């Protein structure tokens, strides 16, 4: 049985460290890029953790397991790929230190205990961490009245998400465009989450990649873009105030039966008839189309020359060979159904109307812009590889916004948070002030509750309590976004909360051990953020000092501060517009803890014959 290999903690740690070493320098807005070269000499330069890690060829199964966990986390949040690996490595490192280097058989049991402690910690996180975190969060009602502040916050979140991955000027431009795109696609802001889901589902149709143009020329275009040119464009197409169009899924010219058939001709007359048959058919069809007042045909399949000729004669514009996905997308937006070949009938449900339809030049290609009620995002970039990166980055940024809105996991807990608050009035008043201050800073006003707000004046705590108490009620009707400042602030806060848990006398020994461990290791993120900043690292400026300052600020004044990734200053990151969705941060901690727990639980790697997938499939077939 040489295929059974015991799994040592050191192996996991060294695998993680290798991954970590790759990413360490690319953390934060000052992060450096990594160049990836493939065997066929194509290169890619990226600062995106996900791109870097997933481009690696990993041979060790544990490494693949770790990366798969990271992928699944990234898939949900669209962010935090680097932080995930970093924190996981740090936790394993601390575990290893605690156990004093290499782990022998006897120590396996201590690992088991730690693994159970982590599991326990995971269940505690929800009750203890979330309410504390929520105190420092900014709540934004997403509704039409509040459009301005929603827009501002969206922009900030996208910018934070894109920071460090590309050069600042293009990130700024793209985030502005993207923010506008998201908000304009959304007719009613209270439906923003649904709009985002729709955009993410139809991302490929909504976003068009264009190479050989500067990133700064990325823009939004009204109406849908069909990535084909006109096969025939009628000269007076532009003159119509409303263009009636139909979308064809299959060609209307396929009039031969499905069954194999051949035509037997025995006379000249028949030959003529046969020759004319198809043309006559097409002609009748197009005449029928014309009779319905249709001026534009959008077809998925190619139209024959003859058909085009007839269309030209009837003055019907044609766009053909349009990708099937775009056809479906257009049909969906225009709320019409596609026309399915000769047996279908043309009626109201197949005819759509567009406000305009004209050729546009995008990049080097000529496309058609069809004026239906949708928007299209054009992402420009000098090279194809870079374009792809922008494409994924934009996709991830959208997920990030979704995370900001999608907080069902936390919303129930808010009531819980309230019950906690009543117990700790003193602390509460501090933190409320803080969160209100933040709101004042960026003028994200809550329209109903906070009627008047002056930036300097702080109101009596009682009123604030009232203010906060109202929020959960409105949550039930309105869509809310919950965000928190970035720059390691969350990590400092989490670290503090976890150390409090570990010190509390009521916690079990395993929990106390692990929460201390996680509290220490979570600080690796601000540490590397600080290390990558421009500040001169003298003894006076060492991370320990910074850590001390932030922690004392937090415990004495209840003010949450973070590290500015650029300058290395300690400040309130909200002032610098570094904002992150809280759910993503919370999920990060949860997922890292879970992964670490799972890794500690594994005691052997077993090689098996065949493929696991096959065996799984077999099982489902059998029963």
């Amino acid at each position, binding site marked *: 049985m040489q295929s*059974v290999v015991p799994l040592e903690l050191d192996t996991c740690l060294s695998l993680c460290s290798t991954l970590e070493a790759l990413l360490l320098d690319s953390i934060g807005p000052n992060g450096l890029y990594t160049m990836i070269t493939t065997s066929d000499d194509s290169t890619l330069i990226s600062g995106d953790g996900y791109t870097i890690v997933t481009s690696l060829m990993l041979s060790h*199964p544990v490494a693949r397991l770790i990366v*798969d966990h990271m992928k699944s986390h990234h898939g949900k949040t669209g962010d935090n790929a680097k932080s995930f690996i970093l924190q996981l490595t740090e936790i394993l490192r601390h575990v290893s230190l605690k156990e004093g280097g290499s782990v022998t058989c006897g120590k396996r049991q201590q690992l088991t205990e730690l693994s159970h402690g982590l599991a326990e910690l995971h269940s505690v996180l929800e009750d203890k961490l979330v309410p504390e975190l929520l105190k420092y969060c900014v709540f934004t009602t997403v509704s039409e009245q509040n459009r301005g502040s929603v827009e501002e916050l969206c922009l900030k979140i996208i910018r934070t998400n894109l920071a460090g991955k590309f050069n600042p000027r293009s990130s700024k431009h793209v985030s502005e465009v993207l923010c506008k795109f998201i908000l304009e696609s959304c007719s009613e802001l209270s439906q923003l989450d649904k709009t985002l889901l729709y955009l993410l589902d139809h991302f490929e149709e909504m976003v068009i990649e264009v190479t050989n143009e500067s990133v700064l020329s990325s823009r939004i275009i009204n109406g849908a873009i069909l990535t084909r040119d006109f096969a025939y464009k009628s000269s007076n197409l532009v003159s119509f105030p409303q263009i009636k169009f139909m979308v064809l899924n299959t060609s209307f010219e396929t009039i031969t*039966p499905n069954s194999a058939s051949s035509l037997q001709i025995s006379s000249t007359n028949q030959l003529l008839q046969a020759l004319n048959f198809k043309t006559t058919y097409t002609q009748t069809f197009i005449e029928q189309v014309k009779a319905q007042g249709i001026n534009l045909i959008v077809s998925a399949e190619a139209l024959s020359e003859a058909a085009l000729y007839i269309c030209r004669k009837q003055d019907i514009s044609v766009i053909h060979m349009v990708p099937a996905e775009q056809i479906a997308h257009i049909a969906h937006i225009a709320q019409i159904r596609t026309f399915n070949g000769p047996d279908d009938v043309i009626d109201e449900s197949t005819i759509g109307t567009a406000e305009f339809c004209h050729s546009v030049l995008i990049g080097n290609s000529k496309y058609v812009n069809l004026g239906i009620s949708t928007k299209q995002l054009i992402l420009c970039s000098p090279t194809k590889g870079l374009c792809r990166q922008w494409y994924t980055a934009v996709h991830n940024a959208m997920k990030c916004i979704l995370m900001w809105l999608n907080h069902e996991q936390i919303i129930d807990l808010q009531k819980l948070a309230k019950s906690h608050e009543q117990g700790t009035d003193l602390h509460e008043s501090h933190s409320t002030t803080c969160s209100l201050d933040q709101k004042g800073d960026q003028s994200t006003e809550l329209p109903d509750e906070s009627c008047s707000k002056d930036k300097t004046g702080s109101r009596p705590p009682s009123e604030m309590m009232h203010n906060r108490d109202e929020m959960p009620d409105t949550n039930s009707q309105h869509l809310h976004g919950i965000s928190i400042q970035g720059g390691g602030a969350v990590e400092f806060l989490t670290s503090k909360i976890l150390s409090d848990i570990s010190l509390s006398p009521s916690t079990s020994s395993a929990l106390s051990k692990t929460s201390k461990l996680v509290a220490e290791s979570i600080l690796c993120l601000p540490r590397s953020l600080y290390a990558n900043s421009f500040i001169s690292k003298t003894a006076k400026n060492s991370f320990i000092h910074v850590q001390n300052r932030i922690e004392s600020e937090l415990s004495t004044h209840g003010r949450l501060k973070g590290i500015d990734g650029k300058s290395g200053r300690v400040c309130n990151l909200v002032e610098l517009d570094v904002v992150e969705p809280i759910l993503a941060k919370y999920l990060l901690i949860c997922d890292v803890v879970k992964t670490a727990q799972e890794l500690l639980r594994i005691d052997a790697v077993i*090689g098996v*014959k065949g493929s696991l997938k096959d065996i799984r499939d077999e099982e489902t077939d059998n*029963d």
Partner: protein
Amino acid sequence: MNTQQALTISGERTTGDTVRTQNVMAAASIANIVKSSLGPVGLDKMLVDDVGDVTVTNDGATILKLLEVEHPAAKVLVELADLQDQEVGDGTTSVVIIAAELLKNADELVKQKIHPTTIISGYRLACKEACKYIQEQMTISTEELGRDCIINAAKTSMSSKLIGRDSDFFANMVVDAAQAVKTTDSKGVTKYPIKAINILKAHGRSALESVLVQGYALNCTVASQAMPKRIQNAKIACLDFSLQKAKMHLGIHVIVEDPTKLDAIRQRESDITKERIQKILDTGVNVILTTGGIDDLCLKYFVEAGAMGVRRCKKQDLKRIAKATGAQVLVTLANLEGEETFEASMVGQAEEVVQERISDDELLLIKGPKVRSAASLILRGANDFQCDEMERSVHDSLCVVKRVLESRTVVPGGGTVEAALSIYLENLATSLSSREQLAIAEFANSLLIIPKTLAVNAAKDSIDLVAKLRAYHNTSQVQAEHADLKWCGLDLIEGVVRDNKAAGVFEPGICKIKCLKFATEAAITILRIDDMIKLAAAEKPDGHPGHGH
């Protein structure tokens, strides 16, 4: 003729003690692999396949099934685990560990010049007595303890798994699911066909957001956006053919003289399908599930009729849906007379069919089927690994719940039964004057491997704990006033001995009995072997008569 040839064996031959020792070692090495995954604090194994796919699991049956095993004795053990998995669904790890331990101890006895047949008969006797003892002394009726004990049994089975943390939640869900599919046949026998419980996995969100749906969940969506997403009082047709333009079979060639006839043929082709759809819709059907495709034109007819059309369903799902709703899965519309008909009796009914978004996917839920209740579990987990492992754990728990519900008895877990049996059998052994005495004593001793392994895995002092446990059980069996001590078992989190009946650690009695029986049988099978012949690969018989085909 070479007479020498007929007597020699074309292969290797091993005999006597060597083969027995080899077999025992092979069995032990198999047991060693799964040993550390036993119990509430057991560890997981990571399985890696040829292409590098990774699975992390704690399930003994899964690990052993995938192992690359060549040794015949080891194979017996792997098959043993599989048997236990099929018969009971739980206790796969323990059955392997016990069998290996029985073998190890038997080997010791053989080395002390006790004949294997004596050991075999001793083991048989011990097993019989043990099963009798479990049935008479250790079982607790579920009526006595109520629903709680069923939930506790489910909790015990999942305690070692990934979902052990949330065992309260999942145990309730599993019990509800099992009860939802309860059927009673004409003889009044209630059955819990847990195969009728459909388990779907969706990643995203936490495990606690898994849901139990009273009905059937189908991992498909409606074929067109324009179709309704919710239909009350659904009438369901299950079809096992595509709704596409009719097409002549290969080899049939149509020859026409008039080109307009071509059009007529085409027209007819699409009309055939249209007529079929019309026949189906005429019976009031508003949900059409098919294993094949539905082409765009046919979709149009469904959309116009306000019906739901679902294509590319799995055949397996369709069969179960048909069973639950009372529909018939139709392979063709043609009846015995050769005409195409669709009758109302082929339609299944359900209270509601609705498409809901769960995580990233949309699922079709068939709620309140008419004929037979169905249940579906939608498991949520952080990623695919977790979902897969959850599915395995939930399946095991379902098996346990089914066994408990059907047999109506439970036994306390945590090494209680094994410790009690070991004391009982030791006492029994001393009362016998034959040679079997030694074998029975060894059998008793072998059973202690379960509490021992449990304690070792939990990082507790196994010698101390097992000694204490035995002392309690001895007291309970010797002194009648302390009979209550027979429920004592291990608490592996705290590392103490406690009353496991009060603590609610239960396993189905049938699981323990089968486990002992199977382990004994497997041990005996291997023990009986005293000669192993490994044949060389057979030479190809060329031109041999009778091999013509």
